[in-house]
């Protein structure tokens, strides 16, 4: 919240420093590394992220902070820390139930049918930009709950990646407060979490074992090329800060990361319109997803 930040940072006045050209340089720097671009309207967000780091460092002016990011000896670690501020997000379990319903009712049955026919009974999921791990943990619970039903006889792996080290560390620890757990039923809490004091819940070993965490920069082509054979990719509200060119590139990677018949889930307001036309937009009850058509679908018009 910009208001809170303004209150908490008496030494940095957003009004006087907003036009500081140093921020424009920091913007370019961040863009070059991560592909995350702050438009002029969103620049205040970048400023507030920098403000937190400037307070931590005791830095008073934007040009001085720019120096920390560019010329000082610790510039790499400072860049990492700023990126961590930038990519932080707060979310909760089961945030998009309609996505899980679409998986259960339509998408997974489709995929199981195709893969089952060739006895390839393994599924691969990827949460790209998993933040503090709510999404992969939700997915893991969902899959475990389907273990003896829809997914009987199937195995899966969940890859969960993020750029932010702090987030990844939190995700690996798997400790969540009431806010993140508020939509997790009592039954699931008991089954997959242990209480670790003061209304905190930690994912148990069974749940943790479902997920492999890794640091992946979506902008890093060599790492992106490496992720193959995915059935489902979740990348929700991650690409919203990316400029068109970077977004396009990431989405093209996702397309080749997915198997034909696979799906990409994005945030509910995120559209690939004029970003990519290889994917097909599919409406499910209460949600949408992008499908990578199978060879048969790609040939003709799907009814």
């Amino acid at each position, binding site marked *: 919240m910009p208001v809170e930040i303004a209150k908490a940072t008496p030494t940095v006045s957003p009004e006087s420093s907003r036009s500081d050209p140093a921020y424009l340089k920091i913007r370019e720097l961040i863009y070059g590394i991560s592909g995350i671009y702050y438009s002029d309207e969103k620049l205040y967000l970048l400023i507030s992220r920098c403000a937190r780091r400037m307070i931590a460092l005791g830095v008073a002016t934007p040009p001085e902070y720019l120096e920390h990011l560019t010329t000082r000896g610790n510039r790499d670690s400072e860049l990492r820390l700023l990126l961590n501020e930038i990519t932080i997000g707060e979310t909760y379990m089961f945030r998009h139930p309609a996505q899980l319903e679409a998986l259960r009712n339509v998408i997974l049955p489709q995929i199981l049918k195709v893969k089952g026919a060739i006895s390839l009974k393994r599924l691969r999921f990827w949460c790209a930009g998993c933040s503090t791990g709510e999404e992969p943990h939700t997915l893991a619970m969902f899959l475990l709950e389907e273990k003896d039903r829809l997914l009987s006889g199937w195995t899966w792996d969940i890859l969960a990646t993020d750029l932010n080290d702090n987030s990844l560390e939190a995700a690996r620890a798997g400790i969540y407060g009431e806010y993140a757990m508020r939509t997790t039923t009592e039954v699931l809490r008991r089954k997959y979490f242990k209480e670790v004091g003061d209304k905190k819940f930690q994912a148990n070993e069974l749940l943790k074992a479902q997920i492999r965490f890794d640091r992946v920069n979506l902008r890093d082509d060599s790492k992106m090329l490496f992720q193959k054979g995915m059935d489902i990719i979740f990348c929700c509200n991650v690409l919203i800060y990316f400029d068109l060119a970077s977004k396009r590139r990431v989405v093209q990677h996702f397309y080749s990361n997915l198997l034909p018949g696979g799906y990409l889930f994005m945030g509910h307001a995120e559209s690939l*319109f004029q970003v990519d036309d290889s994917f097909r937009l599919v409406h499910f009850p209460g949600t949408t997803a992008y499908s990578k058509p199978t060879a048969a679908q790609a040939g003709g018009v799907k009814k």
Partner: protein
Amino acid sequence: MNATVQAKLKDQIRKLDSISTAPAILAPLLDMMRLPSDSIRLEKVVELVSYDGAIAAQCLRLANSPLYGRRETETVRSAVMALGLERVRSMLLGLYVNRVVPQDKWVLDPEAFWRHSLGCALITQRMAQKIGYAEPEKAYLAGLLHDLGFLVNSVLYTEEFRKCLRRAAEEHVPLHEIEEQVLGFTHCETGQMLCEHWRLPKELSDCAGCHHDVSLLPAAGPLACLVHLSDLLCRMRYLGYGYEEMMGVDLVGDGAWQALVATYPAIGTMDLVRFTLDIDGAMDQIVATVDSVFGAKKVAVTATT
């Protein structure tokens, strides 16, 4: 559907007027529905609203609700002005067409039915505007009336239709697929017959008849294609028949979309995710209109909160 069934249904629909309480006002109302919204005359609407005391009261109540700024509206005329001619027109049609179905014969929850119909009307109209279709009002009407066959099936085949709906809900599949199995015909066919019986323009009865399969039309008209797509979109945004259908819908890959692309290339400039969000945003209005048609209770609750 074979010729015997068709003849029987036609006969039954002809007799609908006598078994239902469809009022004489339906004919002038349907006439008014054919006009573009800028040529609807206020006086005519006021006259139609005043025709029935209960309906006039509902208009006044809605106009006085917080949704419309809780104005001190005392006359039908000012109520109609506060609500807007377009809204009153749809309300009227909803109220009167409702009476085609006697209370004990509603199979589908009437509120769900009107939310779906109004939702489809609105989406059809907006999509028509987006792609540059010349008569968005007609598109609205086509969306509003596409499922009239529900009413016919409810009145004439109450128990069988109830069974269809129950099965469709249990199996999470489109209703018309079950109708075909159980009844041997669908609400599309009976809806088309009712439209013809009411002498609505052919384009509108085509929409009722072909909204689940535009390939039934020799040359799928743009209106039928728009209604088909809007109906699908409605059902994917919780504005269906009161249950969730387990399916994925690829609108751009749909035959109706493809048919529209040829004549209305502007459809290619539609960001469907954005459009879907806009539609979601308009849902409050739809729900409010439906509530105003159905319940004094709901409006009263709103008024006290």
